[in-house]
């Protein structure tokens, strides 16, 4: 029989306001095996922990039950406390009476009753707990960064600086991401390429950083410290080690009408292309959807002009397997598709553009060489209307419920740059709210209004109607003046909401990392662990976790790198001793467990068994590799004979908990 101590936490008023903590500790004190029960205001505080330690010493406790917040919050804290006075940390159970009780109920009597039930279940479980010893596992000293935008680049460079090998996997032919497409950055108006491209070059020159461009992660196995990742290098039909990036092929290719995705389709590229001048790696890529040679074997011009002999039409996709200690997700974002917002006539008029398209139209390396011209007829626009929140803060279901965060600032930037460069242009900005928190941000916006005379109008645009003469009629409401406006515009710019890249969801599945309903990766704690995924060894960098601008992205990228470095310098990781084991006498060798194990931790061995009649028999039984097992418990459910069991969560322990809950 265990000697159990029960400690009920008030969590200030978080628990005590809804649960009668005194009644809980009084009732649980009468449970069989309980020799001590008490309650305290903050059990996680130093004095609270001392209360537990003193009771263990004074009453010789062999098991401890803490009724408090979720074990995800403080289980580690309490385990450490009991271990410091010599109790095995796995002799402790946490009954979650906060998240699963006080926070979700209103009726104090019922909540108290439920808290008692949860406490009883934990006591029943601890009766059957056995001391467990944590093992150790090594850490592979290499990190993987998925996504080569500014977030991935910054994370990779910081990890490399600490002396660790790091690989970047980027699905585009070049790293650089969205920042490479942007013209100027707010609030300083410095050139985005000028501050980004040196970092891209640093990635290619740093011998600790390896770039897998035009590549995708196809599978992830393993666990923190020891991931095995398959990376598919898509065939680019150009040998990366031979191509010098001279670009001769990209001027000779006869397929001239391929929409240029780097310029968002505003101009065309060839079938063989280098996305932009400062691409890293500066290697050409053949687009198999347009290349005549690949489609029907006719052409081969690029191979003829390539003096380096880099063109290889026979190149195949290649799958590389690599081991990593840590993985950083930096998959970024895209503007939403605007097909549900046709009141702005984006598909009808070429002169209705998104803000990212405007970046290219204002970029010196863009399709117009940096002169702002209307895409339809190449004339200078004299009246430009900006529409904010296109799909952001949208509860109609057409867009996104969240604020995309960056649009207010980049719209102010666009408006200001246009007024600066083309003072004869009238600029209107329609907004719901202008949100500019951030260092020097509000000053920046005010400059747009006060110094540059941008017309900011509170209200939404209801209809955009292109006319045959090229003008665009904009119908909008001015909510402050309470009147309808009709503006004859030359261009309309839509601040489309941003959403996580489509590759994020399948990746989250591979990583077993959680996501929210908007497909943003969830952080381990929204305040205190913002760059870690709840899945150990997975870290988050940039917009994949939530909308953010460049300075914030870079901060988070460096923070993620710091966390990765902290993991990689660890010599050995303590492994979770709550792993599965096989009761070989009951195992019938059916392989059910092996099939369900997501980690490949179960193998089968032939073993000799001594039978009751003193004969020996060779039988096939399951064997668990405890270093690979993650304790998910799938095998214990799948096992038809009950041979598979999980340390710390044994079948008998769980049944004891269920019994305790069911008996009143």
């Amino acid at each position, binding site marked *: 029989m265990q000697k159990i101590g029960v400690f009920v936490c008030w969590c200030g008023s978080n628990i005590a306001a809804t649960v009668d903590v005194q009644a809980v500790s009084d009732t649980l004190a009468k449970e069989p095996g309980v020799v001590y029960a008490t309650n305290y205001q903050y059990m996680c505080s130093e004095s609270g922990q001392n209360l537990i330690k003193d009771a263990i010493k004074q009453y010789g406790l062999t098991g401890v039950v803490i009724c408090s917040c979720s074990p995800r919050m403080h289980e580690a804290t309490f385990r450490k406390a009991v271990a410091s006075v010599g109790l095995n940390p796995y002799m402790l159970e946490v009954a979650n009476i906060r998240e699963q009780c006080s926070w979700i109920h209103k009726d104090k009597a019922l909540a108290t009753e439920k808290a008692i039930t949860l406490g009883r279940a934990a006591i029943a479980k601890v009766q059957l707990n056995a001391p467990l010893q944590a093992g150790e596992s090594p850490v592979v000293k290499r990190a993987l960064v998925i996504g080569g935008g500014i977030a991935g680049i910054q994370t990779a460079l910081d990890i490399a600086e600490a002396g660790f090998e790091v690989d970047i996997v980027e699905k585009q032919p070049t790293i650089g991401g969205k920042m490479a497409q942007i013209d100027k950055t707010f609030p300083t108006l410095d050139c985005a390429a000028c501050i980004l491209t040196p970092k891209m070059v640093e990635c290619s020159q740093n011998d600790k950083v390896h770039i897998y461009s035009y590549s995708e992660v196809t599978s992830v196995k393993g666990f923190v410290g020891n991931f095995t990742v398959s990376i598919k290098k898509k065939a680019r039909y150009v040998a990366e080690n031979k191509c010098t990036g001279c670009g001769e092929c990209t001027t000779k290719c006869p397929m001239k009408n391929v929409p240029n995705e780097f310029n968002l389709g505003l101009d065309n590229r060839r079938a063989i292309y280098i996305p932009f001048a400062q691409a890293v790696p500066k290697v050409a890529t053949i687009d198999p959807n347009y290349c005549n040679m690949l489609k029907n074997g006719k052409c081969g011009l690029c191979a003829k002009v390539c003096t380096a002999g880099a063109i290889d039409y026979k190149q195949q996709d290649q799958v590389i397997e690599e081991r990593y200690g840590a993985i950083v997700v930096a998959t970024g974002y895209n503007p939403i598709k605007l*097909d*549900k917002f*046709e009141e702005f006539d984006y*598909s*009808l008029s070429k002169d209705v553009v998104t803000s990212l398209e405007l970046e290219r139209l204002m970029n010196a390396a863009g399709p117009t060489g940096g002169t702002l011209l209307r895409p339809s007829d190449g004339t200078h626009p004299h009246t430009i209307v900006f529409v904010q929140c296109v799909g952001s803060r949208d509860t109609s279901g057409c867009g996104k419920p969240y604020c995309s965060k960056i649009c207010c600032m980049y719209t102010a930037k666009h408006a200001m740059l246009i007024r600066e460069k083309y003072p004869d242009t009238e600029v209107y900005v329609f907004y719901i709210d202008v949100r500019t928190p951030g260092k020097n941000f509000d000053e920046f916006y005010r400059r747009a209004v006060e110094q540059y005379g941008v017309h900011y109008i509170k209200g939404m645009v209801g209809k*955009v*109607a292109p*006319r*045959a003469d090229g003008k665009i*009629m904009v119908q909008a409401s001015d909510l402050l003046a309470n009147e309808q406006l009709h503006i004859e515009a030359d261009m309309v710019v839509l601040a489309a909401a941003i959403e996580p890249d489509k590759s994020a969801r399948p990746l989250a599945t591979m990583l077993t990392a959680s996501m929210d309903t908007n497909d943003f990766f969830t952080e381990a704690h929204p305040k205190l662990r913002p760059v870690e995924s709840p899945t150990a060894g997975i870290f988050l960098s940039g917009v994949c976790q939530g909308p953010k601008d460049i300075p914030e992205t870079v901060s988070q990228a460096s923070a993620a790198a710091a966390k990765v470095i902290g993991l990689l310098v660890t010599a050995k990781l303590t492994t979770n001793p709550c792993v599965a084991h096989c009761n070989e006498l009951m195992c019938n060798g059916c392989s059910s467990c092996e099939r369900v194990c997501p980690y490949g931790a179960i193998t089968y061995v032939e073993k000799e068994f001594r039978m009751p009649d003193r004969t020996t028999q060779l039988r096939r039984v399951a064997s668990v590799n405890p270093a690979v097992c993650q304790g998910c418990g799938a095998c214990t459910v799948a096992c038809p004979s009950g041979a598979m069991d999980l340390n710390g969560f044994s079948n008998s322990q769980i049944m004891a908990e269920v019994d305790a809950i069911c008996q009143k």
Partner: protein
Amino acid sequence: MVYHYYPGCTLKTKAKDLDRYGRKSMEALGITLTELENWQCCGGAFTMAKDEIATKLSSVRALADSRDGVLVTLCSACHNVIKQTNYAMANDAEFAMKANNYSKFDVPYNGETKVMHYLEVLRDVVGFDNLAKAVKNPLKGKKIAAYYGCLLLRPSKALQMDNPENPKILEDFIRAIGAEPVLYPYRNECCGGYMATEDQSVAAKKSGQVMDSAAEMGADMIITACPLCLYNLTKNAPGHQIPVYYFTELLAEALGVKD
């Protein structure tokens, strides 16, 4: 499959062409529309009031009478009212209970009938590809502007016909009968018809805008499925010369069944 047909009052009076050519064309395409017995006026407008049951009862009866098949509508206004009523019968338990209590059907009706607009029958049953094959007199060279108006597509949650902001069903129809669709920004704006009796100038302005925009973008004619739109565009927007037809009239012409 039985295709019950709900013509509605206007198709028996002002909009006889919409009805006549619609029936003929469907017959030519091998689908018989069986006019529902004892149908009554749909009420003309779907009221938003939650407690307004009476005006929707005729729609409920038409829906309940069509349980053995599909209920086909042609007039945009009727379609809007009947489809929204059906949506309410299926999704609003209180509304369905009240309507059933009043109607005393042998078996309570809870939105089981499928309601299809005539255009949806063309798209989903006949298929625009098959329609194109059945066309005898393709309307080659005609530039046609589709006018959806406000009732045909909205509210999209209940009507579920097409993207209300960027629809294509009428444009696809125009292509199927051999003509060229003209896109213009006002094709899914309201014609102002509901304002016609209260303030004619509003209706004139809204209709004029539609007509001007379509003409400006190079349309020879406008087609619509809505009698109120047609009336408003032709009668309340003086000075705009572009002709407006029911889409069924052009369909009949293309199929060679127009008399």
